[in-house]
């Protein structure tokens, strides 16, 4: 018998599903782009002002758009019983969750990273600032996905988990926001921003190691 890797089929399935539900995929991205496009119109086009608020605006928009799309991470699978079957299947639930979160990141944050040069232009960021920004986004957004998935898994059994989800997650994301924007600020002043990146990287490593177990445990609790 041909052997199959369940994880690759999870990744394949979730990518196919993301492609078939393009509208849901586009919604957070559009939100992100619109917030950043409207900001210069709202606070005036002064280059210095924009440069000052730019990194913060991009990061806040990224976090809010993450919350917008996060809710759907496990909802369909929970409602139609796929998660239930996954628990009974011949696959480690932690790895399965990790694969699902990975696909979620590819679907909701990778496009955001790809479009960020354009947005940096809107907010008049210097190349040094942009370079710092993209590094914080590359390290920080997987962290958003991983931590967010725990809260989503915990609230997936509730009828209206959305509000609770935001309340749970916003405080957890604050340290990330502080370090990320501080890295870009340092870059703007020509300072070394490696320490901030290192802290975000450390948080990411910790999350990669721990969160898959937490997510799978939360899923089991939700089904209880």
């Amino acid at each position, binding site marked *: 018998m041909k052997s199959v890797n369940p994880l690759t089929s999870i990744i394949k*399935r979730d990518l*196919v*599903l993301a492609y078939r539900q393009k509208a849901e995929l586009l919604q957070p991205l559009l939100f992100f782009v619109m917030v950043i496009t409207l900001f210069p119109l709202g606070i005036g086009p002064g280059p210095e002002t924009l440069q000052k608020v730019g990194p913060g605006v991009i990061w806040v928009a990224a976090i809010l758009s993450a919350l917008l799309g996060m809710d759907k991470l496990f909802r369909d699978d929970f409602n139609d019983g796929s998660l239930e079957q996954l*628990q009974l299947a*011949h*696959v480690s639930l932690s790895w399965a969750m990790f694969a699902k979160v990975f696909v979620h990141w590819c679907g909701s944050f990778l496009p955001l990273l790809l479009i960020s040069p354009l947005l940096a232009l809107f907010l008049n960021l210097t190349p040094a600032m942009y370079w710092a920004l993209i590094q914080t986004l590359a390290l920080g957004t997987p962290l958003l996905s991983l931590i967010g998935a725990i809260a989503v898994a915990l609230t997936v059994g509730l009828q209206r988990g959305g509000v609770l989800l935001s309340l749970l997650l916003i405080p957890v994301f604050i340290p990330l926001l502080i370090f990320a924007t501080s890295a870009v600020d340092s870059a703007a002043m020509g300072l070394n921003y490696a320490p901030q990146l290192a802290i975000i990287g450390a948080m990411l490593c910790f999350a990669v190691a721990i969160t898959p177990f937490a997510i799978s445990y939360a899923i089991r609790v939700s089904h209880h």
Partner: protein
Amino acid sequence: MNGKTSITSNYTDILRLNAQGLSCIKQDRILFEDFSIQVHAGELIHLVGPNGAGKTSLLRILVGLSEPETGGVIVTDAARSETASFSGTETPSENKIDYPLLYLGHKLGLNQYLSSVENLAYWANMHGIATDQHELYALLARFNLVGLEDVPSGQLSAGQQRRVSLARTQLLHTHVWILDEPFTSLDVSGVAFIQDLVDDFVAQGGAVLMTSHQALQSRLPVKTVTLEYRL
């Protein structure tokens, strides 16, 4: 008929699933307390009880989706468990489910945006089973779903979705099927077809535990287990 029954009796000493002392409490109501059930090979068990008696809760505990308040469940491949640990006399104190069993619940586990073939292939892969397209098409044809293989599952009727879900019984090699209301929304011929599949599986030494509010029209002896509604 007699031949089949005698085949069945050859298996009945093999214990497939052993649950002892199970209790379940939902919303401050005791659904069942110190409930024990043993499922042997070649046994068809019909679990009956009024709505809210805890049939689904019991099945979810048996497959390991929920934890019982007390007691435990042991599901083991009999071929691998020649050790004394699975004699059936000891009381399991915690769940030990190390053999895949097939559980089909109220939720069908079909993604509405994926076609029947995609849903089945994904499910089979999750259980480590490789499938090929022809095999799945042939399987769905047996379940009377010709021409609907590539239609998104969300567009199928309730009965057709149930058939796709039940087609999984033919994909996984296991000894125990646990089916929660498998006849829901099936038509008369569908019910008869599924009952035949169940009977064939049981005749070959499989063990089936199922709930249904209809009487089972089985050609094999059916053991009925009743859960009372408790206040």
